[in-house]
């Protein structure tokens, strides 16, 4: 598939802060794409630049092979759903949603039809005469969404759309966003700092750190084949053992751990990544430690085992096999399940 939105070498500096540093991403048509990263990584700056609310110092952005950056914000075929929703408080739901269509000078029957349809899609037809202050958080979020998609943009940008909602409503809205993206056939770009959200909602993710793109991949690739230590640490739950490579093993805090086959030279610094679900409790193990605590997560528990490393080792464990706190645990894993990363 060819790229639809092509972001090539964009940079932006605010005083001493390099908000975006030579960022290049290719986004496909009808993709649900996530810009993920810790706060201050530049993801929101990039999103606002795509919407036309922020200028860039250098770089090129094309949408369907046409230059996007020279088009003013109010003429771009791109709409942004704001983190604060930015609903107009003096207008009711209907007028909020109709706002963008009226600016296009469409005739009133078409406006009425489209507003009606979109309100029905998000399930707010009954609330159309209400003011934003009379709506719940989830309802406001739907109005903001309806107001943006009713314009039928080529790309819908969503800035932390679910961050203001409580956890239960959030997972409902994640499903709803997926459904809407599918039905409307619009390319969605979502900005989030929540890796679980990005993993569950997006087709592909760009993980950003300090103004740079670290890795662009599908959620599964990102989890199973992280490119750097930062990715491994940011995505999912992980055990990271930093040490020095020997021949066929890595020396971490005086213990030699087995490693998968690697291109890295013996004697170099490296990090061994082990996911909690790849470690199992057994009679004899690679490492041995004491169970410090266990956290219950519905179907399984996460054990924290003190094996004499800097951090406790996290092990996921079926409910009926959780040992008592204080008991000795032998941990084992297959070296093929572990991932070895260079430590910069």
């Amino acid at each position, binding site marked *: 598939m060819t790229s639809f939105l092509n972001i090539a070498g964009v940079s932006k500096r605010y005083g001493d802060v390099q908000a975006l540093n030579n960022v290049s991403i290719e986004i496909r048509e009808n993709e649900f794409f996530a810009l993920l990263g810790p706060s201050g990584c530049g993801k929101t700056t990039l999103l606002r630049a795509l919407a036309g609310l922020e200028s860039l110092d250098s770089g090129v952005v094309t949408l369907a092979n046409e230059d996007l950056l020279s088009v003013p914000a109010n003429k771009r075929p791109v709409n942004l759903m704001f983190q604060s929703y*930015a609903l107009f408080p003096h207008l009711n739901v209907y007028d909020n949603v109709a706002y963008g269509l009226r600016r296009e000078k469409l005739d009133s029957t078409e406006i009425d039809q489209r507003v009606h349809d979109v309100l029905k899609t998000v399930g707010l037809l009954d609330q159309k005469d209400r003011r934003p202050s009379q709506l719940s958080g989830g309802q406001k979020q739907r109005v903001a969404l309806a107001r943006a998609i009713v314009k039928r943009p080529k790309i819908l940008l969503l800035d932390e759309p679910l961050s203001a909602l409580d956890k239960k409503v959030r997972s409902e809205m994640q499903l709803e966003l997926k459904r809407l993206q599918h039905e409307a056939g619009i390319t969605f770009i979502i900005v989030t700092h929540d890796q679980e959200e990005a993993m569950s909602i997006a087709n592909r993710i760009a993980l950003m750190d300090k103004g740079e793109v670290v890795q662009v991949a599908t959620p599964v690739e990102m989890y199973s084949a992280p490119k750097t230590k930062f990715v491994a640490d940011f995505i999912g739950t992980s055990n990271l053992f930093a040490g020095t490579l020997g021949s066929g093993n890595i020396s971490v805090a005086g213990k030699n751990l087995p490693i998968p086959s690697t291109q890295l030279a013996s004697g170099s610094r490296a990090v061994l990544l082990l996911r909690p679900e790849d470690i199992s409790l057994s009679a004899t193990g690679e490492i041995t430690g004491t169970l410090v605590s266990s956290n219950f997560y519905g179907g399984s528990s996460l054990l924290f085992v003190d094996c004499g490393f800097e951090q406790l080792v996290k092990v996921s464990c079926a409910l009926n096999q959780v040992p008592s706190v204080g008991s000795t645990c032998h941990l084992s894993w297959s070296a093929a399940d572990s991932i070895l990363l260079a430590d910069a």
Partner: protein
Amino acid sequence: MPNRLGWLRIPLYGVLVFLYLPISVLIFMSFNKSDAPFTWTGFSTKWYSVLISSPNIMEGFKNTLIVAIVTTIISLVLGTLLAIGLARYQKSSSLEAVALTPAIFPDLALAIGLLALFTSLHLTLGLHSVIISHALFCMAFVTAIVRGRLAQIDSSLEEAAQDLGDTAVGTFFRITLPSIKPALIAGGLLAFTLSLDEFVIAFFTNGPSSPTLPIVIYSMVRFGVSPEINALATVVLLISALIVTIAQRNVKVQDQL
């Protein structure tokens, strides 16, 4: 909880009496039949008819209305633009302080300064010079109120309007102005009342031919308080009270939004 106050009611009512007794005496005496201003002889509304038939007072009232209305319009437009400018482009807080201090200048200092300025510019004094002077300090009040409102509203509203395809001018009239409307009403009414009974600055910056109402009252009481002054003061009081009530109601609406 009405019964919680207990003995604290005594000082409460004491303070209320202290605050409102003078005003009550004034209103009461304005309905006095007697020609002496403070000796009650019976009920009458004759002093209100005297007011209406007095050309001096009616002239002063007309001048005051002209000054208050024009002042309100000028200070609303300039004060709002200043507030928006401060909110959007302000880089230093001292700029904001400079814009707002005219509101707390001592009247006398401002009056003398304005008079000195007008004289050195060879500007003839009259209602226009009063209007300029009133607009100067009323604008600072409007700026303060509108600036406060702007600080409360979500700054991404204007961005959202542009994102939805609106122009900068359209955004101003469709989004910015409606969101600060309560502050505009409150600020405008405040400017109107401030100008309505302003004496010191008007006294210094006015010409001899067109006195405003406070100046007319001042020249009347110089030769002793006559009973129609009570009636006039009552009318001014009622107008001010009415306007302040409306203004406050709008500020409350603003808080709820």
